[in-house]
């Protein structure tokens, strides 16, 4: 008990609280800018925080980490542009809700879901860090490959009922993910001699293009003179009603479970977790057909899940000394310089520090939630700008934000090309979700499969219980919906009263 008290009371230092406040403002701001990621901000901020004491320094960095995952929801919901990759799945339902005049509800419920997800993750960190990190160590290439296969079964879910078109888009995404150097031999593939492509297609540029730029281009293309189709001025009600809370309960539970697990697995983060949580909630939902068309359940599950990874990543980082995601990789660098060595012994030698870290994240979460809810109305005002202002703002902010990721004009060009690709997909009714999923999972799938085969042939996968179990679950996930609908066709009477599921 005493390390808990000690760790938390260390946060009462005004300097620390000030640092948390500064981190929250910076994090929310940069999170809301498409392109600028939490990783980049933490990396740049660590240049300044190294001169601080460890605790205030950690307060700044961890708070940026937490609050960037609130700020990035705002552009995802309002202009269909994920502020960071973690909010890709937020766009699925958030933007649809905004277009239906429910932007207010989308923003607040997203903030509450995000806060809930973060809290669950942090509680996991406090109670179960060591056993969870053991679990993480079991995820080698074979298990990662099986997990990714499970992720690929979501292709159908994110296709929005257009299965063939969705699969075409998904395979396109997987194919785009092969651009770059081969993960095992280093052979260049589809790079056309461009050094910029040898690390693959810049992912952030691609998603900003596919979602945000494509949306703006579509609006410009279909704009009618005089029609003055104001985008979203009607925000609807802001606070969830009692019935809304009841709807959000189940997806919150599913999202926190999915996000917690994905967060603990090394090298996977909020982007995958958001989509995975969204898809699991869709499968479990009684109204799966609403997912992707403005479902409150969808946005809740996505945001809970992607934020529940935060605690998991911190857990792996602190308990194993191995970075749980890219932000944590940067943070380990700072911790080491401060003389904090993350690893199993940290929990034995400095348990109060672990609780301080958890405490910082809790305070940051509450602060980010409060700021989100208070400030939403002001930010949402942005959308009341006339359309020509809004287009210019989105285009220019996306361009500069994308440039800033790598200081690269090439990335901006990629973003525009993917904007045109996204426009093409949209005009022909192909969902962009599977393309993004393919891009995220493609290199993980191939790299881990081939790594596993290098290590010990097919036996590596076949002898791993986790991998086999995950592959079985994937097969069931693929086979179950068609079987179920076939069964329902044959037994129509027993089906009465339940809404029809999608394919």
């Amino acid at each position, binding site marked *: 008990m005493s390390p808990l008290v000690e760790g938390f009371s260390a946060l009462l230092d005004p300097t620390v609280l000030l640092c948390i406040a500064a981190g929250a403002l910076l994090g929310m701001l940069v999170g809301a800018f498409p392109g600028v990621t939490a990783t980049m901000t933490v990396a740049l901020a660590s240049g300044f925080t190294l001169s601080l004491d460890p605790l205030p320094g950690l307060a700044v960095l961890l708070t940026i980490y937490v609050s960037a995952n609130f700020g990035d929801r705002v552009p995802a919901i309002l202009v269909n542009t994920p502020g960071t990759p973690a909010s890709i799945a937020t766009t699925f339902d958030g933007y649809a809700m905004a277009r239906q005049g429910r932007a207010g509800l989308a923003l607040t419920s997203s903030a509450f879901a995000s806060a809930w997800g973060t809290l669950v993750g942090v509680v996991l960190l406090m109670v179960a860090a060591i056993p969870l990190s053991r679990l993480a160590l079991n995820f080698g*290439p074979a298990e990662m490959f099986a997990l990714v296969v499970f992720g690929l079964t979501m292709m159908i879910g994110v296709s929005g009922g257009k299965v063939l078109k969705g699969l075409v888009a998904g395979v396109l995404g997987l194919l785009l993910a092969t651009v770059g150097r081969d*993960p095992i031999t*280093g052979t260049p593939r589809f790079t056309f001699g461009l*050094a910029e492509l040898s690390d693959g297609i810049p992912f952030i540029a691609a998603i900003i293009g596919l979602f945000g730029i494509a949306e703006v281009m579509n609006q410009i293309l279909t704009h009618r003179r005089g029609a003055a189709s104001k985008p979203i001025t009607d925000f609807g009600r802001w606070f969830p009603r009692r019935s809304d809370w009841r709807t959000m309960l189940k997806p919150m539970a599913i999202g926190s479970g999915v996000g917690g697990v994905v967060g603990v697995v090394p*090298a996977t983060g909020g982007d995958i977790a958001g989509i995975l949580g969204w898809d699991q909630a869709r499968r479990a939902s009684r109204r799966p057909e609403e997912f992707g068309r403005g479902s409150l359940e969808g946005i809740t599950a996505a945001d809970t899940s992607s934020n529940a990874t935060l605690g998991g990543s911190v857990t792996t980082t602190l308990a194993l*000394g191995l*970075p749980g995601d890219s932000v944590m990789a940067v943070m380990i660098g700072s911790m080491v310089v401060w003389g904090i060595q993350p690893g199993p012994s940290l929990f034995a030698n400095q348990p109060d520090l672990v609780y301080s870290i958890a405490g910082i994240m809790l305070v940051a979460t509450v602060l980010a939630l409060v700021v989100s809810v208070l400030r939403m109305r002001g930010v949402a005002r942005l959308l009341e700008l006339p359309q020509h202002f809004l287009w210019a703002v989105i285009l220019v902010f996306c361009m500069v934000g994308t440039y800033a990721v790598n200081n690269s004009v090439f990335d901006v060009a990629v973003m525009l090309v993917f904007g045109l690709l996204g426009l093409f997909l949209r005009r022909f009714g192909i969902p962009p979700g599977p393309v993004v999923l393919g891009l995220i999972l493609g290199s993980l799938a191939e790299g881990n499969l081939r790594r596993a085969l*290098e290590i010990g042939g097919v036996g590596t996968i076949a002898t791993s219980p986790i991998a086999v179990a995950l592959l079985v679950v994937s097969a069931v996930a693929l086979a179950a919906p068609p079987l179920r609908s076939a069964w329902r066709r044959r037994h129509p009477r027993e089906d009465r009263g339940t809404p029809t599921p999608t394919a």
Partner: protein
Amino acid sequence: MRSTTFRLTAAALAVTALTAGCADRGGVSEDTTDYPSQDITLVVPYDAGGASDLAARTLAAEMEESLGQSIIVENRSGGAGSVGLQDLAGRAADGYSIGYLPVETVMLGYQGYDVDPADYDLVGQMVSVPATIAVPADSPHETLDDLVKAAKEDPDSVTVSNSGAGSIWEAATRELGATADAEFRPVPFDGGAPAVTAAVGEQVDAVVAGISETAPAHEEGQLRVLAVFDSEPSEALPDVETAGEQGVDVVIGGWGGIGAPAGVPEEVLDKLEEAFSAAAESEEFRTIISDSGNIPVNVPAGEFAEFVESEHARFEQLLGDEG
């Protein structure tokens, strides 16, 4: 902050560089006696936040003091570092553009990238990251000799993870195999941390990685470092023998230094070297580098140039047959 004149000059220089390419090396007809009279840009060919970035930024902060001008760190990542290195080579050789040169400077040329160490004037080397080989804590292999024996008995069966295809650590694995006359199976991962994780999780038999990545896990008892591929034992791992002491004479690892586009005027280069040396010697720099687990060094330009040349020749042998 940066002045408009700087912006305009930089833009003008960029245009010059674009039109003239790297052809007019040394043709900068500027009065060099008042150097540096404006901000200096330091190109880092990696993302912000990594160990190289940290080393470069720390050094830059120290160099600012003796040069009396701001040094602006510019991260240009991509292409395994080649994007930033090419960018640096194409800039004006006036001393206002310098860059962080990693070991990849001498490797990428053999891996299909357009990078040549001859394109740079060297200022000095400041950091050294010896390679280490480590096994999981309950591995049956107690010494480097055990591991080499296992690889000899059953060639191509001992799996050794590394941070990526074409990385220095993969090259180190091959060098070890070639010297010990044994055949290891390198398994490239997507970054140093996943490679170390795979060894901690016992998915592979061993890992070759930089000392800063394996030493913490060694202290935690998650890994056992069998050998350091350096000429002398490391302060970070005093109980671990070098590979040479165990009869396998391999010295290999990552390193980092500062360079400029080739053709910088002599006086400017002298001033840079002086500032570099003072910075690399500073308490602040040495502490941060050794705290992060790497070895701070201060190798002057001439010696560094010889070293780079020998490394370039070595990797021609090691990587040249890859095609």
